[in-house]
């Protein structure tokens, strides 16, 4: 089992793009009991990864409840860096 933050980043090397909600949905099977698998902490992790060029924003919209939903992806360089430091 990988640390939660690693799993969040690794998720982006397997999908085209994802939002914080998508990440939580994808990881809740394995990490459902982790306190840090919540929207606030996951958004902070994604924005920090973006600030460090691991991820980049692709688009954003409002969900049905009117909450902001930002999508990110790992571009080639970002994915290479993630895979370099975080092994499977």
């Amino acid at each position: 089992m990988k640390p939660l933050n690693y799993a969040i980043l690794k998720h982006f090397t397997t999908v085209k793009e994802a939002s914080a909600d998508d990440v939580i949905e994808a990881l809740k099977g394995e990490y459902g009991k982790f306190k840090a698998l919540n929207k606030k902490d996951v958004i902070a992790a994604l924005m920090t990864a973006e600030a460090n060029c691991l991820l980049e924003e692709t688009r954003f919209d409002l969900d049905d409840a009117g909450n902001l939903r930002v999508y990110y992806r790992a571009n080639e360089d970002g994915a290479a860096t993630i895979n370099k430091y975080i092994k499977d």
Partner: protein
Amino acid sequence: MRGTANAAAVAAKNKLSSQFYRKGITIALFSGLMYGFYSAFLTLGMSKGVWGDWYGVNAAGLSAFVVTYLLGALGSAVNDTCSAVWAMGYAGFRGKLGDFFRCLKTTPGHVMILCALIGGPISSTAYVVGLQMAGSIVIPITALCPAIGAILGRLLFKQELNKRMMLGIAICVAASFMIGSTSIGGDAPPGMFLGICIAFIAALGWGFEGCVAGYGTSMIDSEIGITIRQAVSGLSNLIILLPVFGLMAGGLNLSTSLAIQAFTSGPAMFWFAISGLCAFVSYMSWYRGNSMCGAALGMAANGTYSFWGPFCCWIVLGVIFGMDGWSIPPIAWAAAVLMVFGILVIAMNPMDLFKKKEAK
């Protein structure tokens, strides 16, 4: 893609982005403030209980070498160990202890351990040795670490570093020099140049730590990163640095005996517990702030500790505990204002402030 988003989404997105940026700067500034309190409470702890005798009457008959080097390393070791206990406790409370042990075995975990060794025992020792060899002139030298961190961030991680940001960093470093210059006395002994070079290793080490560990916390949770940092720093100070100084001072028994006395000195440990808490919060905020707004801005905001250090020592030691010699010289207040301006220059083009006013 963005064109399709409606105005409400754009407004919400802009709000989220500016909140994140502001939060990063606030956290980095807060790390500087907490560093000031950590310095103040550490100094207080090292004047209480058994430390009062060691640095005062010295009934134990400790040599000048032991008082200067070994006690300095012991103070750091006790503080970092207390800090590690706080960090482990907090990680446990936040349900992150499992991830702490998992991270230790990974590449980012190893990088974090390297940062802890470089920023902990290596830089701290270089600083103390530099201080002893060259005198207090080395204090402003270490203020170079934000500039070093920003340059390393550019070289290693391709972080933004334009001319405006370099100017801002230069202003901050100059302000730190102004504060540090107040502690320069006529105490420069022979071997000063070598001492300055050794102190520069400390600035290099802290610059490296802030930049690399800051980037590392984009992969490792900052709360886990700081737990690794303080545990490694505390343990390496206790297990490596202290015995090395002990051997140099005459024997392992001495360092072990002093460590036991320090850890069992109740009146001092109370303050070490508080300094350890402040150090934990300070370093965690430092790493987090650097990862949120880049090494250049993060380290400059953290660099306000050059002002917060004397300020908190004045409040805690001078005002609250009535100790003499902790008042702040006027130049430090002027430097603090200059530093705020420097940070502003790194963070944004000050001319934009006027442009926005005009737009309104």
